[in-house]
């Protein structure tokens, strides 16, 4: 086998390990996938009547459902990456990582296994969320190409945030820290166009909301799903995703390699 073949083989083994973890730790998996669904119900049935009234259509709640689905898809991403961060930190604080390091395996495979596992988990969680949304009455005028583009943008953004979560998990001194830091992503999401139009926010907050990554991603996905103009949102979303992915990847790999030199325990 060549080096590349070994890398692929090792990454596949690690991916299988991480997928098994997700099944063996169902409480966390259910929590991470269930949270966005609970929030969907909350936003539509509790806040939806009031928030939908601002959209100026006949069926406010239904219109708000259509509006908020991209926001909840992003909640799904933010929720799953919290699990990524926890799983990475659990690996790093446990004994097994030292075993991997003393074996002649592709160095990157431990991290790529986590990334691919989380990406699959995110996509599965988003499919479930979309299914529930359709059940509640969500309708989209998007054609297959638009769906594909929306999926691509979400997957790329998820990929970026997963790498960020991997880096946060590596940087965390404990599993508790690793579970808390990704909460910042949820907060950022609430300060974006995920749930309400940024036009309704006070000036300072609006400017912040318009220049952070969640807004262009939410706007691009919303545009694609509702068949309206996407324009610069998609480009901004892709640029943010690539930027976050590259920086997080470099940071993560650096942290992963530096741990070698650290004092035991």
């Amino acid at each position, binding site marked *: 086998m060549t080096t590349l073949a070994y890398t692929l083989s090792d990454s596949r083994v690690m991916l299988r*390990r991480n997928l098994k973890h997700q099944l063996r730790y169902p409480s966390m998996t259910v929590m991470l996938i269930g949270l966005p669904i609970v929030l969907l119900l909350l936003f539509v049935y509790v806040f939806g009547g009031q928030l939908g009234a601002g959209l100026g259509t006949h069926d406010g709640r239904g219109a708000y459902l259509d509006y908020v689905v991209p926001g909840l898809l992003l909640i799904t991403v933010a929720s799953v990456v919290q699990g990524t961060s926890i799983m990475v930190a659990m690996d790093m604080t446990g004994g097994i990582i030292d*075993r991997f390091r*003393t*074996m002649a395996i592709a160095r990157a495979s431990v991290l790529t296994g986590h990334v691919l596992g989380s990406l699959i988990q995110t996509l599965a969680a988003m499919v479930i969320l979309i299914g529930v949304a359709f059940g509640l009455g969500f309708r989209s005028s998007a054609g297959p190409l638009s769906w594909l583009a929306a999926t691509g943008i979400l997957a790329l953004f998820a990929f970026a945030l997963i790498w960020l979560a991997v880096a946060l998990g590596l940087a965390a001194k404990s599993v508790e820290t690793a579970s808390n830091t990704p909460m910042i992503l949820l907060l950022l999401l609430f300060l974006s166009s995920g749930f309400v139009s940024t036009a309704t926010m006070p000036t300072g907050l609006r400017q912040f909301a318009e220049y952070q990554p969640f807004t262009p991603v939410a706007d691009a996905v919303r545009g694609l799903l509702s068949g309206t103009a996407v324009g610069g949102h998609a480009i901004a979303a892709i640029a943010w995703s690539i930027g976050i992915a590259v920086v997080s990847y470099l940071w993560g790999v650096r942290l992963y390699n530096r741990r070698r030199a650290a004092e035991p325990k």
Partner: protein
Amino acid sequence: MASAAAAGIAAQNVRKSFGDHVVLENVSLAVEEGTILALLGPNGAGKTTMVRILSTLIPPDSGSMRIAGHDVVNDPDGVRAVIGVTGQFSAVDNLLTGAENLQLMADLRHLGREAGRRRVAELLEQFDLADAADKLLSAYSGGMRRRLDLAMTLVDQPQVIFLDEPTTGLDPRSRRTMWQIIRQLAAAGVTILLTTQYLDEADQLADRIVVLDQGRIVAEGTPAELKSRIPGGHVQLHFADPRGLRTAAELLPAAGSDQDQLVLQVPADGTVDSLRDLLNELHEARIVVERLSIHTPDLDDVFFGVTGSHVSAQPNQDSRLQGAANR
């Protein structure tokens, strides 16, 4: 040294410090192929750091090391391909079953589907884990986890293995099982470096012992050499009355007597000849000895002799527990 280069361990002048704290100072050791070397020392002596350096986990500040001919610093992947490491903290995956843990190792060692499955089944059998193969590790006892840990290390039949405190925290029965496994490995030609803070463990298992204290080697040799190097071997003679003790003390001026216990301690090297001479001497002087006991120096004496401090003597307690358990 030539054979150590072939399939053993050779380390010269290994130094390591964390900040100002010097953890290892010029530690050199050699382990011949198929032998067991015990790195013995109290907590904080630098044993684990030495293992972490030799197993490529952390780089040394300086020093040269070769494992089965591979340079640790320049060819870490070459080293990783021939070693197995069982650390102090169990390096097992808690969310997988025992069989899955072994299969994970087989896959990462690229054994191939069939060979991997065979090896997993073989190890489950050998380590008495076949019944628990499909149970999650949360259902495993401490001893089972340790056995699985070692089995995972052995999936690809490494030439050299490092065992960092392999029996710490185990109950006496599991400890003995572990010893047996380690002996079998060495008999099969595997080179083993183990660390321990238990003196009887080093005595039981090791061909050679290196005593480490505060990052420096303070003594080394075979268990017998270390024991012979220090005085402390003696024969204790117990008497029924003070008169016998007094007469014997006069006959044997080198001995120390204890009037209260009616005991005389006679220095002895532990050989049968010297014992026979002593008994003949007593017999000719018509001194009646109630009973006698022979004390050979143990490694605790060695450790006390070279470092000035004792090491926790858990082994004695263990053998007592073991005795009770067998009854």
